[in-house]
């Protein structure tokens, strides 16, 4: 139920009464329905499932998560896997 892929909104327009957009997944572009992300702006990221943006993707959260995890590895490098100082 869950194949959702992040993509960048490149264009926003209306078609048949619906808010639609062109989303770029990194070399592949598709028309996506943006009705469920009414506040999204060009340049922002959305999660796309069957041609619909089901939510906006928070780049801030994404970066925070990755930073946090990178820190875990750095700490590990310092203290070593068993907890002793290397």
């Amino acid at each position, binding site marked *: *139920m*869950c*194949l959702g*892929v992040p993509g960048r909104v490149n264009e926003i327009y209306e078609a048949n009464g619906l808010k639609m957009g062109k989303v770029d*997944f*990194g*070399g*592949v*572009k*598709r*028309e996506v329905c943006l009705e469920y992300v009414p506040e999204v702006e060009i340049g922002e990221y959305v999660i*796309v*499932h*069957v041609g619909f943006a089901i939510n906006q993707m928070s780049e801030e959260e994404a970066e925070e998560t990755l930073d946090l995890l990178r820190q875990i590895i750095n700490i590990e490098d310092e203290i070593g896997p068993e907890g002793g100082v290397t």
Partner: protein
Amino acid sequence: MSEEKDQVTIHGLVCPRPLVHDDIVVLGHGSGGKMTQDLITRTFYPPLENPALLRGDDAAVVELPQSGRLAISTDAHIVAPLFYPGGDIGRLSVAGTVNDLAVMGAKPLWLTASFILEEGLPMFILEKVLESMKTAAQEAGVVIVAGDTKVAERGKADGIFITTSGVGVIPVGREVGGAMAEPGDAVLLSGPVGEHGIAVLAARGELEFEADVTSDVAPLNGLIETMFKVCPAIHVLRDPTRGGVATTLNEIAQQSEVSIQIDEIAIPVTPPVMAACEMLGFDPFYVANEGKIVAIVPTEYAEAVLESMRTHPLGEQAVRIGEVLDEPAGRVLMKTAIGGTRVVDVLAGEMLPRIC
């Protein structure tokens, strides 16, 4: 056959003279009479011309090489759409047969091409396809020495169907085959995977996506010869087409009764192919190629073969993707991007976009 009543066959003077149809293909073009002859001389001969073909006999006659063994192959080609970024059914048919011969270690020499044309096909489409076949044949250094044309009623041939056969010569001393992989061998791949499958899928338009992807369809005999130059004893060569590299490796693993182990990180995939696969839920390892080589060579030759491949335009991104082991025989295993292991099975059925 119901075609008979619609045919126009001209015997001597006929009144009124039949219309000359030179903008679309009609049933009369397949009748075997003057219209067929006109089609052949006006449309087929110019792009494909070579002495054997132009003789116009019922069969082409060629000189057999003094030594070596013959390799013979045949393929039927159906593709929709007929034209897509990077290629078309004409290029596909020439490259496909050339490659089938080349992966046996043969130097491809002669091709035949028979066409089933759909009534109503615009003539300029046929001309474009033939022009494309000419280009592909020149790239491969082969000649199309014999051909045939029939016309099917509207609705019964999807534009064009092409069947090609090819003959090549395997030099003395060369032995390549799917059963020849040995434990310890290196597994090489000539470049990024999945380009043809995604390019055609995008061009079909049913899933309505645009992809910056061009089909890789190309004759590979030139690339293969650069490999034999540095390694006369290549064990296996394959061009992974439908079913992707995954299916090809499984075939080899079973034929040779060995295990093939692949490193996921080593497999080249271009960003747009990856993006298309992610969006649709495809695995690029299973997507069709038409211009790639999988080679299995003794490991001591791996570096030299890769260097040689990289000097050729079709092998610039050649990499080593894995190795051949003893066990588990018949299975392809993959070390995943995060260090886990998974079994790579053959493609079961058609790949369909998934929601899950």
